[in-house]
């Protein structure tokens, strides 16, 4: 383990904490992870993250556009193990970050999290542990710093690229395999006696693909219906644009 003088801990750290990278925290290489700013083994980083999710209040998964929208094979293959993780965390919620645009005049903090004001969602839902996955790195970093500044949330970044210094725990190069490995770490900790804060299972997915994956049952894929003319659904917004003067 490489010890770091500056510790990346759950906040609130203050009005405007410095970026961890400026304070000397370095990104991990393959096979490593970050835990509180220290470079540790991938296993250790996952254990620290899993422990926080099982034992802190209101654990929440924040899937970003790279998880929500199946625009590449990489994003599509990560969806089933993402639900495996959700299944292993009792009391978990999933709140998406589908978009990076600011949401005005007011967000629904129970429905979305937004990088322009992520702390509103954390505060409203009293979230003390969360995972960001599938969020573009720039917006993840902007978000992670604001959460560390103003909330006591333990942030975890499971990143498909190089990882995130401003998360309390982060693992780089996360694809479907590492998501499955993380789900297994959650299962192992529970087997080894870690008592989750909440009882029961996490989210039980209702989608056909997730049910088929978790249960092994042969569930038929529902036929996709094409609705001609649905383009008008967003038409009004595209036409009007955002009202920048709206409060």
């Amino acid at each position: 383990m490489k010890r770091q003088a500056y510790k990346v801990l759950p906040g609130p750290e203050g009005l405007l904490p410095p970026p961890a990278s400026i304070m000397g925290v370095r990104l991990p290489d393959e096979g490593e992870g970050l835990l509180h700013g220290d470079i540790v083994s991938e296993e250790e980083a996952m254990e620290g993250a899993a422990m926080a999710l099982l034992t802190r209040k209101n654990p929440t998964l924040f899937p970003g556009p790279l998880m929500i929208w199946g625009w590449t094979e990489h994003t599509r293959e990560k969806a089933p193990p993402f639900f495996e993780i959700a299944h292993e965390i009792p009391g978990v919620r999933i709140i998406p970050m589908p978009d990076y645009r600011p949401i005005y005049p007011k967000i629904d903090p129970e429905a979305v999290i937004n990088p322009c004001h992520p702390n509103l969602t954390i505060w409203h839902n009293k979230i003390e542990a969360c995972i960001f996955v599938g969020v573009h790195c720039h917006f993840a970093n902007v978000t992670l710093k604001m959460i560390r500044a103003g909330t006591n949330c333990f942030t975890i970044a499971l990143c498909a690229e190089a990882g995130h210094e401003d998360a309390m725990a982060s693992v780089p190069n996360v694809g479907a395999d590492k998501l499955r490995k993380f789900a297994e770490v959650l299962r192992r900790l529970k087997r080894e006696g870690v008592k989750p804060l909440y009882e029961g299972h996490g989210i039980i997915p209702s989608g056909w693909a997730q049910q088929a994956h978790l249960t092994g049952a042969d569930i038929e894929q529902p036929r996709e219906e094409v609705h001609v003319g649905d383009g008008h659904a967003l038409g009004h917004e595209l036409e009007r644009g955002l009202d920048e003067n709206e409060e």
Partner: protein
Amino acid sequence: MAEGLEEEVKTNPQGDVITATAPPPKLEEKKGAAAQRVVDPDYLLLHAPRKKTFITGSEAAKESIRRANVDIAISYPITPQSETMQQVGYLYAEGYLKDYYRGEEEYGVMSAIAGASRSGVRCLSATAGPGLMRGLEVISSWPGGRLPAVLLIMCRVINAPLAIQPDNVELSYMLSTGCILLHAENQQDFYDYPLVGFMVGEKPEVTLPVAVAVDGFFVTHARGWVRLPEADIKLPPRQCYHEAVPMMDNENPPIRISRDAPIQKSNFISYQMHASWQQEIWAAGERSRKWLNRWLGGLIEVVNPTAKTMIVASGAAVSQSREAVRQATEQGADVGLVKIKSIRPFPTEELIEALDHAERIIIPEFNYVGWLAREVRNVIPRTERVVPGGPRVFGGMSMPTELLLEYVLGTGSGRH
């Protein structure tokens, strides 16, 4: 009927036989980028066998761009940059670039680079002196947009009276933009640094523009030895979908997850988001250190590391300092040299360590304001060790080694 007739033979006025049969077509030879193979950046930058060639700085940049797998180059002519981009134009004609054009002026050029970079292609531009000043508003917006591109800066005078001669004061304006800024010493650096710039700036955790500066004329128009790998290899293409922000690509849903700026309301949430965004720009620059160390062999180079008098320089001042160190050493002086390769990120820890033992620190510069001296003074302890006054030359002056020796030996202009 034709069987009994002698076949008519056509000739040209010189008596050469004209045949109706065209010569057999040659197999289509691959040219330009199509004839190159993509190699690992480590191989191209560090391990590929190289041959020495004697070329100008502009030609060195051309050879760099030839191997950089650049998609588009846009610029506007200005001395001493024009020759380099003319060389890049030859590359376009030879099939090494997909697009190349002259913008309407530098503001338009830098805006066009922003658009091209947002669309995910590998971009190159170049400018000099007043051109950099004109484009600076847009260039300053590149890092916040997380727009990887390489900008070559061939430094020249920017202030009145008008002059086209060497002077690198313009780099002081680049220090606060958030761009990565490398300062090339010679023709070799001007070949190597742009290639490194593309690879570092496009790393997902970095995703920033990289400016590669060089002192105009001294390097761009003079010849020097440059070690080049074969021309049949090139860098991997830009992997835009792995970068820190989504591309402006309408074929990828949802198109509106774009990099819209936060709507600037008069409230703390808006301010905080913008603050965190700005922090992220500089944090990304910090992350480039790992890759600069890997491909530049460190952010600094040290010559005679135990000497009591240390010269600290960047750009062409390094070459003059090398010669001054050689001559001073012949005269029995104890003098060393720190070459700064990367101005942003600045080699803070490296300088503190390299200068820890030094009793006198001399910082020669090709500008009046002494921006490098300010930078060094900001990070090292015991700043009284920095000899005041430089030496500095500007307005097109060269930096004779005699001037440097006066500072090293404490004579003439260097009696401080």
